[in-house]
């Protein structure tokens, strides 16, 4: 019995030493965590330039604790023929290999996006380290400048951008896309991907970032931009408007602001007399948020006219987005997939190959059902006659 006990003890001891690590251990203190990755064309256009922001954990100030000594982040860049090569060449500057698994943001420079992002995109899906939940962005200047920025609001640029994107919902003016969704759209024969546009601007000595719109792609090449109105138009169609403000005129120069509470959408394809038609049905609910004119809007007539005005405003936003998309000939709404689902045979025989011919000619009908639910805390206007 005793020998058995000792054997078990030895067995456990062996495990203690062998099971604690492996070839691929990466301890936290030897990781260079990437928090923002920027991709640009290199000086030689054949090359890519990768700029990476790395966190220096010892310099991050903790609430209540001692604040760090210098900057909490450090930026390195390198060039290579491919993204992977550039990523490894970063190690020529850093003491540790860059660890991409916690990177929340991938920024492509506009120049790169116009030329096509395909040369760098594969790396972000093939390599096991980068996560596909990271956000894709296009920057109006070189991505390098975005990554390099030192902002007052949030010391780590990647986390700052991540928060900006997560706050998009409060306005719903810009469409955003993760690497995974971008990939899914790239794999589709008809749908086009899109992602948010970002820019850094200087204001009173401090630099802040701004999401300026939505970058629209055709395959992997950026072909245009949606402004805020068109951006929301796109989100209406996709049913992704979660919140935001719609301003409709009241009288003369005064306006009424209506808050969006929720929305739903439906894309219904149909074919009549050899013309393709898409019916977009949007259902929206909102509240009266603010008024500048002195009229009482909570009467039945005024209320329903307000609802109509709102529906028309939404319709105009969608129309703007559809027009722009048809002009650019990019199916960002997924109309092609809608036809694919309803008319699989026709899609396979004709639509799939010639979608670029069909898409700009699609007839689009927009039906908006806008409801106003609540008046806010007052029923009479807070404006004197």
């Amino acid at each position: 019995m005793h020998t058995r006990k000792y054997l078990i003890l030895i067995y456990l001891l062996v495990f203690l030493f062998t099971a604690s690590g492996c070839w691929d251990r990466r301890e936290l203190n030897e990781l260079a965590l990437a928090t923002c990755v920027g991709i640009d064309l290199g000086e030689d256009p054949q090359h890519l330039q990768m700029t990476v922001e790395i966190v220096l954990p010892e310099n991050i100030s903790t609430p209540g604790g001692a604040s760090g000594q210098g900057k909490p982040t450090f930026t390195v860049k390198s060039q290579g023929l491919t993204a992977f090569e550039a990523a490894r060449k970063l190690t020529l500057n850093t003491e540790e290999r860059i660890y991409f698994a916690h990177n929340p943001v991938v920024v492509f420079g506009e120049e790169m996006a116009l030329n096509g992002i395909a040369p760098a995109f594969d790396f972000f899906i093939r390599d096991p380290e980068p996560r596909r939940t990271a956000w894709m962005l296009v920057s109006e200047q070189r991505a390098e400048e975005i990554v390099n920025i030192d902002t007052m609001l949030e010391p780590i640029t990647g986390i700052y951008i991540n928060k900006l994107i997560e706050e998009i919902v409060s306005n719903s003016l810009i469409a955003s896309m993760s690497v995974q969704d971008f990939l899914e759209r790239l794999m589709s024969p008809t749908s086009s991907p899109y992602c948010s546009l970002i820019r850094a601007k200087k204001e009173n000595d401090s630099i802040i970032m701004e999401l300026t719109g939505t970058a629209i792609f055709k395959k992997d090449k950026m072909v245009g931009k949606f402004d805020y109105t068109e951006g929301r138009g796109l989100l209406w169609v996709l049913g992704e408007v979660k919140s935001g403000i719609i301003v409709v005129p009241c009288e003369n120069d005064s306006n009424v602001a209506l808050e969006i509470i929720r929305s739903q959408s439906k894309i219904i394809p149909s074919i009549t007399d050899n013309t393709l038609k898409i019916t977009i049905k949007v259902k929206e609910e909102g509240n009266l948020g603010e008024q500048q004119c002195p009229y009482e809007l909570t009467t039945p007539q005024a209320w329903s006219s307000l609802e109509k005005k709102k529906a028309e405003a939404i319709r105009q936003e969608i129309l703007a987005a559809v027009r722009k998309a048809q002009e650019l000939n990019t199916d960002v709404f997924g109309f092609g997939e809608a036809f694919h689902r309803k008319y699989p045979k026709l899609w396979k025989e004709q639509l799939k190959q010639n979608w670029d011919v069909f898409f700009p000619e699609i007839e689009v009908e927009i039906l908006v059902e806008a409801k106003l639910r609540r008046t806010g805390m007052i029923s009479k206007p807070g404006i004197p006659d």
Partner: protein
Amino acid sequence: MQPEGGKINTLHLGFLITGFTFGSSVILSPGVEAGHNAWLTVFAGLVMGLIMAYIYFTVAEKFPGKNFIEINDLLLGAYLGKIVSLLYLCYFLHLGSLILRDFGDFFTLTIYVNTPEVVIVGSFALLAASAVRNGIEVITRCSLIIVPLTMFAFILDTILILPQAKYEKLLPILELPLKDFLRISFSSFSFPFGEVVCFLMITAFLNSTKGLKKHVLSGLTVAGFFLITASIRNTTVLGAAVKMGLYPTFDAIQLIDIADFLTRLELVIISVMLTTGFIKLSVLYYGTVIGLAQVFKLRSYLPLVLPIGIILVVLCITQFENTQENLAWAANIYPWYVLPFQVLFPFLYLILALLKGNHSGRKKAGERS
């Protein structure tokens, strides 16, 4: 006479079959080639699997207490029977090495990038060897714990990913030429449902064949149901990108994000699900070892465990130079390679068993020598 004295009952066999079928198919989603119609091909594969399993276990029921090697001898005669038995044993061994290889590839591709594959595969095989040495009862008991655990992990991750699922991605249904549909369905039958043929080695250890088919077929259905769910989940989450990933389930689970808090669960969940791979490997390994002991009339199978384990590992490492070879082989050759083992021979057995069954029915009173 059996080289081992373990006894299990049919309910436990059902659990074992669920774990076995779940096995490595939980990471290598079957039928994924069919894109958004994958779940239909898995369903078709399950139906074929149920029909074939019915045949396998009808044969087993005709010969209670006899294992596959003895059945072969009885049906095909001593010489031909032995040859076919050895072919089957080679298949089981090879299948075991393929399972090992799948796991080795999975780990070296995802987390242990620099670790030599032989280390991962070797430790996995060592674990299975210990289970095999302890006999069928231990393997079965393991499955009683592992299968519910895996189911739990599976249900959990499916619920957590629901917010990202878009059901219109499954449409249009049946958008696949019939030829492709049949080909992919057969390939999802041959992996994993048809592999249940290995359980003919195990049925001899049943204490009674009462309710055998009921439990076996429900075990297979449960596993099939989960695999169909997995397929639907992966398609609704990944959409058109489902076709490109080697491990769609892994890709899908990676996207779980509940309030920025429950994220990056893939390794936790996948590690739990991988335990069913251990069941699959153990069953195949055990089947091979027991079968060999039987063919060569050994009194105990224990001396064979280690040598066969070494062959398993060596075969696993040397059979493919790289992942690409493994993929090409699994897609193009595997379904043809298993055709005789999973379909042709069992049909032959069924016919022979029905013909000879009348004889054994009359001789019921006395045990066969």
